[in-house]
């Protein structure tokens, strides 16, 4: 085996872990805020049905959170085991950001989750609601710190060289680096949409079993309206994020568009098979000049192609396809959210609409994963843009150990994912019981 195999294994393993992990925080960040809404509603009405709704979703939250925590612990170990060069080079910046996440977010959310889950009959309504708010604040703070680090790796700022390693010159510049505001907002909205479609989808699933469940219909309506509001916001923020990427990481944009040549009036490639060896697209279906319009808001603007960034370009095909999957799923989500929010205002939703929501239960996961693939693979060959290459961060763990543990993780993650989905649909079918 050569160094390439070890690199591939280390990346496969880390990529698998991080992809599995992000599924759960993506739900729990926004679901925590949903829980506050359910809890406040019960406090207002005192209705047994509202209590049951809260209890159903708190169960789902607890399971989601638990898987997020345990898969997150894995991450904290793999930073060092898979990428020791990363910590040696930029540890003075990455370390404190991760440290602040643990200190300000992890303990807060985990401790108050205990009170929220088990303490409803032990503390006052007010303390219980404060606990729910603390859990939500914790999940959001956690997203804040980890996205600050992730964004800094994409668009580093505020650092200075000190000998062989980097140190922070200005922490505010490090945290609020150029892409951070866009990434953080984009991820929070992604979480909001993922949770909304989960809530809507599982409620629709319940209504397919028991059409008379008024509580489930009310929850479905609320989630559909939330999604209908968040989806267009996400379109705007996604566009702004793209423009920010064009400014700071033009090679990534060129890969997203599969634009090999620098030219004026760059076409928008709807579909193609990027041919990395020949440096062109096969079977391309293009709309003339549209990419220039989307990216620069001018039909004849010049867009830099991949040829300008050789040889430091990301793998084109995964970035190109993942981006189209993300946008495609997002369009479906927007359409269903708007139509659903409008149609659900009237009583007796048709069964096909319920099936549509049930079928889209996990659509947020697909869009979010595709989005992360675009941004993380799009950053290659850099681990930290312009500072550290992924190859240079690799550790000395033998391939056999990497391979064996990778197989183990694949097995455990498959079991957990399967169990998670089975339990969620099972809970949803039973519905909220007073």
């Amino acid at each position, binding site marked *: 085996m050569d160094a390439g195999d070890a690199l591939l294994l280390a990346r496969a393993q880390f990529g698998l872990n991080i992809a599995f992990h992000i599924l759960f925080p993506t739900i729990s960040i926004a679901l925590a805020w949903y829980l506050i809404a359910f809890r406040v509603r019960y406090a207002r009405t005192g209705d047994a049905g509202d209590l049951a709704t809260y209890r159903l979703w708190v169960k789902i939250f607890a399971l989601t959170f638990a898987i997020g925590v345990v898969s997150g612990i894995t991450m904290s170990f793999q*930073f060092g085991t898979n990428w020791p060069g990363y*910590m040696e080079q930029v540890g003075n910046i990455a370390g404190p950001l991760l440290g602040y996440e643990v200190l300000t977010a992890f303990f807060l959310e985990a401790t108050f989750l205990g009170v929220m889950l088990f303490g409803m009959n032990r503390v006052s309504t007010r303390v219980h609601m404060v606990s729910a708010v603390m859990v939500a604040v914790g999940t959001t703070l956690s997203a804040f710190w980890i996205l600050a680090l992730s964004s800094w790796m994409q668009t580093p700022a505020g650092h200075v060289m000190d000998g062989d390693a980097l140190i922070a010159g200005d922490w505010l510049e490090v945290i609020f680096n150029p892409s951070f505001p866009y990434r953080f907002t984009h991820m929070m909205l992604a979480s909001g949409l993922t949770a909304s479609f989960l809530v809507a989808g599982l409620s629709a699933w319940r209504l397919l079993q028991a059409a008379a469940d008024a509580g489930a219909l009310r929850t479905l309506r609320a989630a559909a309206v939330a999604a209908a509001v968040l989806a267009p916001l996400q379109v705007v923020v996604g566009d702004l994020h793209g423009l920010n990427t064009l400014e700071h990481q033009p090679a990534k944009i060129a890969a997203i568009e599969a634009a090999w040549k620098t030219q004026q009036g760059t076409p928008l490639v709807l579909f193609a098979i990027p041919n990395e060896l020949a440096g062109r697209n096969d079977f391309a279906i293009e709309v003339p000049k549209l990419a220039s319009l989307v990216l620069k808001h001018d039909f004849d603007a010049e867009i830099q192609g991949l040829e300008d960034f050789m040889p430091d370009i990301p793998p084109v095909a995964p970035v190109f396809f993942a981006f189209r999957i993300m946008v495609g799923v997002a369009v479906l989500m927007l359409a269903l959210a708007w139509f659903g929010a409008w149609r659900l205002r009237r009583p007796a939703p048709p069964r096909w609409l319920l099936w549509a929501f049930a079928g889209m239960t996990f659509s947020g996961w697909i869009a979010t994963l595709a989005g992360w693939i675009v941004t993380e693979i799009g950053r290659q060959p850099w681990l930290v843009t312009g500072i550290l290459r992924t190859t240079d961060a690799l*550790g000395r763990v033998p391939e056999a150990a990497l391979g064996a543990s990778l197989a183990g993780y694949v097995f455990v993650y498959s079991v957990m994912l399967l169990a998670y989905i089975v339990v969620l649909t099972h809970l949803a079918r039973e519905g909220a019981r007073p």
Partner: protein
Amino acid sequence: MSLDLPLIFAILMGASILAYVVLDGYDLGVGMLMPAASDAEQDVMAASIGPFWDANQTWLVLGVGILLIAFPTAHGYILGALYLPVAAMLTGLMLRGVSFELRMKAVGWHAELWNWLFWFGSFLASFAQGFMLGRYLTAFQPGWNYLLFSLLVGAALCGGYVLLGATWLILRTQGPLQAKAMGWTKWGLLWVALGVALVSLGTPVVSEQVYARWFDFPQTLALMVLPAASVVSWLWVWRSLGRSDWKPFAGAVAIFVLAFLGLAYSVFPYVVIGWLTLWEAAAHPSALSVTLIGVAIVLPFLIGYTVFAYRVFSGKAKAGLYGK
């Protein structure tokens, strides 16, 4: 600033690891004791750790986080050398985390499966942690004698966690389950005594550093305070069984604190024995000081709300989904 930042972070890291071992130790111990209890008792046992286990695990993330932040070179080296046991521990922690949630929601053979996985995950994580400690103390040297020693430490730590778990149950339960927990405590005590004796006999053989530390003449006499105090704590746990709800747990915690101090003394000032001292391994002072500011601000709140949570759930545990 003339603060000795690496030393401060070494102390913080040690405190986090100790907090982790004691706190997650009792819930891992309860997990390992599950098969010895009836179905109804298992629900009470799960309820006794339910509100806490998430937060307990966070101390592990903090401990590893400090290793990563303050001693990045050592983090890569140690965790690289412990790659497979770390993977085993993480697998165990993941299995038990997800099983804990699922065992409450499943019925029939599913519930049995998750119960079994909860036990297995608890055991795997505990054993792997002890094994890692053994490898760490012997500076990751290859050879069957070092491997055997590490397996021994793994088994001994399981005994220690069972002791913590059993005494925790004495504190948090009543009636027949509490009586059972007293029996488990005795087994835990014997297991720990045997484990510590074997580990103590083995240590001089496998680690010159540790041997030299403990058997260097005049200090040896002063150092004997630690084993002596451990013996006293051990006897105290045994004697207070059936007389007090909280003393056995306090005594078990004391045994862990003393063992931890002994280990810290064995290793100091190294982060990686015989190779890297904590000053050599330390990150840049700017990274340490900015983190220390965060610790200083957050730690009082953290301790405050942790105490709050333990007060909310003081008293005896009751079975039932989320304390309903």
